[in-house]
């Protein structure tokens, strides 16, 4: 049973790292380069977890989260906001948008796997 994780980040470096790390841990990874792309990739797929950056061109992460939460199949999929801003503001905004939690970027690949395991097993 392979779970799919949607990784949304405008940085190809981060995307590749996330994808490489999570694929290595046995997950399927969908990559998207911004919120818009993320929504398109999310549509019609069964995703177990969404990891998203905040600040991205075209559509930011929080807008994407709000849209995802409007889609019945994403109403309760865990969504983690990746961010370099560890301020409380961001957390409050992430929570208001419907995120499940937050993860500070940059992260250690090993810890990313731990966190993902903690959330979706």
């Amino acid at each position, binding site marked *: *049973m*392979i779970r*799919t994780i949607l990784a949304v980040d*405008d*940085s*190809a*470096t*981060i*995307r*590749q*790292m996330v994808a*490489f*790390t999570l694929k290595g841990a046995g997950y399927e990874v*969908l*990559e*998207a*380069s911004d919120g818009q792309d993320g929504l398109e990739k999310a549509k019609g*797929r*069964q995703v*177990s977890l969404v990891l998203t950056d905040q*600040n*991205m*061109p075209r559509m930011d992460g929080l807008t994407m989260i709000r849209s995802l939460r409007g889609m*019945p*199949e*994403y*109403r*309760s*999929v*865990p969504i*983690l906001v990746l961010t*370099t801003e*560890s*301020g*409380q*503001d961001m*957390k*409050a905004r*992430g*929570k208001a948008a419907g*995120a*499940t*939690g*937050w*993860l*500070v*970027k*940059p*992260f*250690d*690949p*090993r*810890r990313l796997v*731990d*966190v993902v*395991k*903690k*959330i*979706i*097993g």
Partner: protein
Amino acid sequence: MSNPTDDSMDMSQFHGVFFDEAAEHLDRMEGLLLEIDITSADTEQLNAIFRAAHSIKGGAATFGFTDVTELTHEMETVFDKVRKGEMALIADLVDVFLASGDTLKALLAHRRGDGEAVPLEEVEALCLRLRAFLASEEEREGGASGTGRGGKARQMIELAFGPLDEGFASKSVDGVIADLADFGKLEEMVEPQDGGPATQRRFRMLTEVSLSDMNDTLGFMVSPDKVKVSLVEEQAQGGEPSATSAGAASEATSVGDEGFGLFVDAATLPANQPVSQPVGVVSGSVTPIKPAAKATQAPAAPSGEAASIRVSVDKVDQLINLVGELVITQAMLAQTASEADPVLYEALFNGLAQLQRNTRDLQESAMSIRMMPMSFVFSRFPRVVRDVAAKLGKDVELQTIGEGTELDKGLIERIIDPLTHLVRNSLDHGLESPEERVAKGKVRKGTITLRASHQGGSIVIEVSDDGRGLHRSKILGKARERGMEVSDDMTDQDVWKLIFEAGFSTADQITDVSGRGVGMDVVRRNIQEMGGRVEIETTADIGTRISIKLPLTLAILDGMSVRVGEEVFIIPLAYISESLQPSPDAMRSLHGNQHVVAVRGDYLPVLSLAQAFNVKADVEQYEKGILVIIESEGAKTALFVDSLVGQNQVVIKSLETNYRKVSGISGATIMGDGRVAMIVDVAYLVGLANSRLDKAA
């Protein structure tokens, strides 16, 4: 800063992507900064600049490139204020950002393994300048409203790093401390020492940052067992602790030391639920996908950049090389088959014709991979023009036309320096000062135009300005001063060409901008080495246009094969003006076995290719052989060969890499019959013939 990587995970494999991506971000940022109108900046542009700094910071922090992280962090902080309209975008800020961009490029180049190390002071100085913008802004803000940052609660936090050992040296602590500098001022607590090396370093900091945020931040710099964070005392300054921050912190089920937290009860997570149980979820939404379903879906999942892929140049070159071999093999087959009976072997001939078409298409496609748009070159000029014009006090507009015109990557990289020199020259010597322009009745603002276009199998790149133009008598005067041989009845073209002569750029011309020893002669030599040529058109007080004509690629060449005895040589078609069989009375002999030939009233030096390369010719008499008239830099020479073999496209093989550099030969190719033919260096041969002629005369 200690690199937060797992031992089993080699992070360096991601460096390449990061370097490429960062370079793209920096280029985009520079472009945006140059085009931005500071009086009415577009929000999207500001956001894009912010994101560039933000993205680079993210990657750099991941790989532990602290210098890059530090600088981009300052840039990000400042630009975040700008994009939110909390801070005005001023010209000084644009300058500091451009300078920071340059430093980042240098830092990244060094990390990548090319370029020199950037002194830390340079990075520090930029950080300080960036921080100064924030400080002045805060001062203004604080004075106006009396609230702001001062209103938040501050507390004294103690950070204890240790135990210090080989895996976690005292040096690493310095890195972490430097990264924390923007949270507040850190003071190191001096430990009572018992003579031995310190096992722990302690710092105190008065900061608004909460304990859990400090833990978050440290969590990705230092492993949790190497640092202890504790609260020393709380100092409420200017009122109540911030309600929002306290509220959010209590709502978040923070797991600070992991840099990760949840807004929900952990028990509701799928990991802690029996399968397919989440409340309020449409059935099946988080249940695992069946392998069969996955198999059909997987191919439809492209990565983020489906439109392009990154491939190393080596791989492309290998491909082009192989296609080159294929072209040669195809030519061999065609040649061998040409002796067979076309009626008997009709199917074979059809197949070979098809193979030829396919090979040519394949070659074209392979070559096109190496092609890059001229925008790659042109995009750096707004910056060059801006900086140089500012230094010279000139008002200049840069126009670029034909950025989409494509050119071989190898040539693109080599054209940058000559082009930069020409543009600087135009700015310095070509364009007048604003006052002078106004006095002449011209518009105050000068224009420099860069234009690229395709002409046949060549690309033409022009640098033109609407400045004062070249001055015939001044150039002649200067040339005489330098002891060059000139006469007053030289054609204009010949006079203009003098500026490309070595030693023409002279001491009294040296300014801060151009003429620093590297003269126009280097420009011309560089362009000639690329198989190109330079032409000048100029009109007094209207302007100057310098055109560079280059072959599209250095990998294939349209050539004329000529035979001398047993040998076949290739003459690049672009340099041939005509071929003829001379009549005996057209030939004149000079002293020293030198000959000239009269071609429509011009006497051209004759150079026997057999003599030049010391091979044996079959034909001894000029009127029985062929003279190929070649032209380089306006000088013509008649090359004497036995016969013309034919015109064909040849794949260029470097003689230098496969053998060694040989004067008079620019490369080699493999012919259809499998033999190697030399490609002659036209500029060298023309020079040789003319110098012999000079000696003979």
